[in-house]
């Protein structure tokens, strides 16, 4: 029989095209590199590149954090969600550079 929808990968980070499986693999690698004593979400997201694309986490941050936290828990690593310091930052919408450019270099 043909495969069902279940075999389709679950895409979590759309900008960087990361599936749930990719994220779990990256987490295992991140743990190997940093060790459970050192790894924080910020290091993980850079290594996995999830949340670093066009939306800068505006669309996927909570999903990626959830994968991170639940997998850490499965591995028996204690991790307090309050520790996660990564937040969405300005500008809230992409803005063209020209909008902020002053006329002369003396002004900045």
């Amino acid at each position, binding site marked *: 029989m043909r495969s069902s929808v279940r075999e389709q990968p679950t895409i979590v980070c759309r900008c960087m095209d990361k599936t749930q499986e990719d994220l779990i693999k990256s987490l295992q690698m991140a743990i190997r590199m*940093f060790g459970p004593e050192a790894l924080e979400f910020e290091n993980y997201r850079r290594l996995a590149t999830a949340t670093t694309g066009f939306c800068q986490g505006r669309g996927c941050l909570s999903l990626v954090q959830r994968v991170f936290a639940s997998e850490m828990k499965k591995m028996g690593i204690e991790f307090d969600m309050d520790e996660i310091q990564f937040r969405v930052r300005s500008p809230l919408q992409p803005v063209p550079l020209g909008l902020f450019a002053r006329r002369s270099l003396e002004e900045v």
Partner: protein
Amino acid sequence: MRVAIIGAGVIGVGIGRELSGRGVEVEVLEAAYPESGASGRSIGVSSVQQKDPRLARLAMEGIGISREIDRVLKEEFNMPTGVMGEQVPHASIALSEQDRARLSRYFEYWRAAGAEAREMSPREVKEELMPWIDEGSFVSAFVTFSDFKLMYFPLVSSGIMMIRSRGGVVRRKSRVVGFDATGSRVRAALLEGGRRVEADAYVVAAGARSAELAAALGDAVPPIRVAQAGALVTEPYKYQFRPVVTVDSKGYRFTQTLRKEFVASVYDMGYDNEGFSVDESLRVLERLATVTVKLFPSFSYMNVLRQWGAYLDYALDGLPIVGWSQKYENLYYAYGFGNYGFSVGPAAARRAAREIADGGRDPELEPLRPGRGRRGAAHISGPLASRAMVLAAKLFRLRAPLRPDVLVPKLRDFRLEREDAETGQVLVEEIRGLEYSSGFLSATVLKDRPLVFRRRDDLVKTVRTIEVPFHLRLEGGEQLLLVLAKKGLANEVASDLSRIMYGSPKMIVEARLSHEKFRRYFEGSMEDARVIYFDQVDLPNVGVLALYGESLRDSALYHEYLEHGKIWYVVVTLPSRGGLTVGVTRNAIIAAFGRATAQDLVDFAFGELAGLLEEPGAGDGE
């Protein structure tokens, strides 16, 4: 041997990696998470373009070390990306002839360090390196060819991996809040939550927070200034923009990452910012946008996705601080790497690790010692010197004459440490850069102030050092002091100097201008006056009278006002001094407007204002 390292940035992890390679057991303690400070906010350029010949040498040496790490990662750790990224041309842009003169000095350092480098004209830059640049926007570019764009996150994470593979450990959320020290040894580092970490030696590599840790130990280290910095990243665009572009006069760097986004950073927005505010983020963004669009007008459509900030720690002389503490025999410092931790860090870390593990003193690190420049006339030069120029000043008189041969040694050796009652930090006041010739003395007072600000959820305690240049006229007329600062700070420095010179705070007093002489002097240049304020007005319910704009042209009004009050403040353009525009009050506060330099102000104060003072002891009824 067991070493505890405080700080998991590029320096702390770098030293840890080198130490563990020498068989040392390493524990890295990080307050937040690895590379949470300046290291994680960098745009990832390793550059030989340093502003000091010794730093340029270390940066060149670092290339070899990075190559070696790159090879080890690829061959032994199965990390195919390595750390080296791509070797690219790096163009330092001179916007003006003044920039060019300064950069050409640095250029010699880069060449002397062995970098392939050449000066290119705007046209050559456009044709050979980047067709997008506006060749009319700059006068020249100094280009090196040995720099590289790092695969920057792996530089710290691979270091952690190497430390772990050799039995060491890196711990996040392990904030050092104090030390247990007896005599000349540190016994333990105390962590938040009560844990003690004991080791044979301790390394402070906590970047902008290092001074705070030194203060907790009561150890005097060279003061650092925490500079605000920031960066942005755009969407990815399909250009092949390989070079790195730096505009040092704007503290600006720009390149395209290996992922095709453009990144721009500004590595110095000034020192006096006590924590980020929305306004300051906007200032950072405006500077980044303005410089980018000026150089690359066609990039003005690029969408900014994200902006972030950083704190960079710079020592006053621009050199990092690397070496054993002068107070504790098992405490080592490595901080103050400002914006060049990725460039100078690898070589400094290797040399520091050698000293920590094997003993001995590395001559190449001698200029970077924590004890350097604490006495005598360490001269401040380069960009910090120009930043110290304040275009406000106040003139004071010395109440009792002093002989230069007595005074000069007194000021030259001056250094005072005291503990701040509230924060327990060691505050230093010292005089540097003293020069004396033919009756004129010039020097700079460096004064620490405790600075507490909030960063994220923490209260950060650090020290801010204020630089106040001053000039003394000791011969050729009445002895006068000119302090280059706004009036509040100028008064404070004058009374400090009085204490140093006379042992009493009241021997240096405000110089006052004689009203008659003041009036006559400025009536000579009435056509060029911009504003005149009158005080001591004898009309009921009138505090101050002012003349400006059109009303200034009415000389009848001027004479009428003069009958009722005294001239308090005048702003005037002086054709006799090359069009210098100054504001002067009767108590000798001077402000210079426009493009005046500190030298203009000094010449004006001693050359002109000194002749307008009241006779000592006299007063005109104030």
